């Protein structure tokens, strides 16, 4: 432990928002719930940073809920345990970090998009969602993943639907999300049930030990159901249909928060199950890795292509998110430390870019009222700070040097050259380049509208977004640049995290 006397640190990132969320409901509408949520996100962020440092220095931490750890002679703990290694410590820090920037940002945006009387319930739901995402990431128990996944999902459905004040399509988007998400969660539960039937345990590390060498039909089907279930929640390409509208019509702050965290947590779950639980010589794993290559590349192209033609910038960014999930799957599909590290790096970097982009669009929605391309015409003159923030984070999305996007793609290409997959590495690199070109087209379209299009004649003069929103957005924009120079932070942590994931997975460093 990094700081003596903090033995209970591992549980704090979940318990703090969990206790704080209900209290928010009782507050007076307006500033109080927002300030409270912001404070909670900052405190949580500090605890996750301490946790990350602790894991970095001392290796994986285990924490037994209720003290029900593994009794002598047992390979599995009796209760639920938290198992924190670098991979989930990184994702935890990312989620809490994004929250600690997006929550303060949310204030004006929420005041304009949500009924004033609903703000306490809104921030309660936001904190519950936050709790759920952290709980999914930190836990070492397969069923506990489901419970916290549903905590975050249920609150997300309600939050997405709050966009109905701007556009009723938020309601149908949210309903589709609910149906697909629930099917995904139920598939996940079926998968866990099959694994439980094959092993008798729910703890991830113990599952790994019990499953090792087993390759019967139950395990294969369980694996398929888990991957499909999470694939639905992740919006992996053929299962992505809920995502564009959900992100597009959700309130701005929610889009920014979800795009930067929710899918990232799902990628982490995939990593955890593929490498920690199933990380052994398992025929199905290779099938899945090959499928991920195909799905990843299909996603990169299909979604980027669709994004080019969207008229709504939020929807364009949502499709771009699906494309970026393709990059992450591609990294995973290499099945090597470099590949997984590249995937984790992109998880981190993409969260930074998408948060900044959606926050920028949120500023435009606040001032101009909608997010179609026509709202962005001449934006560089009307709202220069927002426009330039959008351009820089857009360049990061394309993968231009001096931004984190470049690091992501560089690492991904590097990893591609060091692996042997069904597709030759050179082709993969070319495909990554081509897909980045598509990204350049849609970001270029946005930049063109903002820089070169004239301000509409009849446009009312608008003010720049409030300071709070601009500052928080620019924190994210600058993070996009800063982490280009501080690669040892992200790349270092991600590489060691990938190492840890594959090591526990391949059976060397089991915790028990």
């Amino acid at each position, binding site marked *: 432990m990094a700081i003596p006397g903090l033995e209970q640190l591992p549980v704090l990132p979940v318990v703090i928002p969990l206790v704080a969320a209900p209290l928010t409901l009782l507050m007076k509408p307006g500033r109080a719930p927002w300030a409270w949520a912001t404070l909670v996100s900052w405190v949580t962020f500090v605890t996750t940073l301490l946790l990350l440092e602790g894991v970095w220095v001392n290796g994986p931490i285990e924490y037994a809920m209720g003290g029900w750890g593994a009794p002598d002679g047992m390979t599995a703990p009796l*209760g639920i345990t938290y198992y924190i290694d670098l991979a989930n410590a990184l994702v935890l820090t990312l989620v809490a970090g994004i929250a600690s920037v997006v929550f303060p940002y949310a204030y004006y945006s929420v005041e304009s998009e949500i*009924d004033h009387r609903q703000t306490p319930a809104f921030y309660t739901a936001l904190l519950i969602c936050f709790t759920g995402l952290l709980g999914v990431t930190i836990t070492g128990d397969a069923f506990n993943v489901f419970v916290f996944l549903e905590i975050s999902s249920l609150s997300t459905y309600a939050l997405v639907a709050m966009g109905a004040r701007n556009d009723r399509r938020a309601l149908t988007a949210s309903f589709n999300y609910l149906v697909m998400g629930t099917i995904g969660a139920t598939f996940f539960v079926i998968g866990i049930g099959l694994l439980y039937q094959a092993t008798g345990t729910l703890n991830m590390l113990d599952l790994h030990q019990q499953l090792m060498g087993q390759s019967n039909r139950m395990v294969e*089907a369980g694996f398929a159901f888990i991957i499909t279930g999470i694939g639905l929640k992740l919006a992996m390409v053929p299962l992505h249909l809920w995502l564009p509208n959900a992100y597009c019509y959700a309130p701005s702050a929610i889009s920014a928060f979800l795009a930067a965290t929710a899918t990232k947590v799902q990628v982490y779950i995939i990593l955890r199950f593929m490498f920690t639980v199933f990380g052994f010589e398992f025929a199905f794993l290779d099938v899945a890795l090959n499928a991920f290559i195909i799905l990843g590349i299909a996603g990169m192209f299909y979604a980027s292509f669709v994004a080019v033609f969207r008229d709504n910038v939020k929807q364009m960014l949502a499709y771009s998110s699906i494309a970026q999930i393709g990059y992450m799957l591609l990294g995973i599909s290499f099945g090597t430390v470099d590949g997984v590290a590249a995937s984790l790096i992109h998880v981190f970097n993409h969260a930074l870019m998408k948060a900044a982009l959606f926050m920028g669009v949120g500023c435009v929605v606040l001032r101009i009222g909608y997010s179609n391309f026509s709202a962005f015409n001449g934006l560089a003159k009307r709202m220069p700070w927002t426009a330039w923030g959008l351009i820089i984070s857009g360049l990061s999305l394309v993968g231009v040097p001096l931004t984190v996007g470049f690091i992501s793609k560089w690492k991904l290409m590097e990893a591609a050259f060091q692996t042997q997959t069904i597709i030759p590495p050179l082709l993969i690199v070319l495909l990554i380049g081509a897909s980045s070109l598509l990204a350049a087209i849609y970001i270029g379209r946005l930049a063109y509208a903002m820089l070169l299009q004239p301000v509409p004649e009849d446009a009312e003069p608008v003010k720049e977004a409030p300071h709070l929103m601009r500052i928080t957005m620019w924190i994210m924009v600058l993070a996009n640049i800063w982490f280009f120079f501080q690669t040892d932070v992200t790349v270092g942590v991600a590489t060691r995290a990938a190492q840890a994931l594959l090591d526990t997975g391949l059976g060397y460093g089991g915790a028990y």
Partner: protein
Amino acid sequence: MEDFQTPLQPIILLDLAILSLLIATAFAMMRVRRLFAVVMLSGIFSFLAALFFVSLDAVDVAFTEAAVGAGISTVLMLTGMLLTARREKPAVPGHKNIAMVICLVTGAALFYATIDMPAFGDPNAPANIHIGQEFVERTPQDIEIPNIVTAVLASYRGFDTLGEVLVVFAAGVGVMLLLGAGSLRGGRKVKDDRPGDDETEHDGREF
């Protein structure tokens, strides 16, 4: 390992009776278009499931399914139905085919899994000799209450249950957001004026 076989006892007849009723109810739910009937059938399905849970020795689950599945869920669906529609329109055939394909693939995957499953009721199945068994043995010493399910629910896996309470809470908050004070009736069409702007207490502040 494979020396256990599910005994052919007369109780199987009872199980089969309940199971065939379950199938019949589910089939009726697929076919019937009157939503009131569908909701009632869903309640019946939950009761039958509760009955079957009793025959599987899961009394706590049976109790919960009867109270939650057949009780509260049915009430909610009835009120929800009253606020929405009474009948379902015929589905588009194209959807039916897609649904059929997806269901067949999923069902085949599950069927595939059953081939290697331990026989129904096998005491030596992996599921029944690892942690589950441990709870039965330890509860008397660790917790000292007779109901092992309560012991596991509230203590060994108490954190899951906390999560479950939070799920319920989240649902409550979600419904408050969707239907509570300040929620719109419906939502805004693209061309409408933004609803509710005049009635909100924005106190005219400019950010």
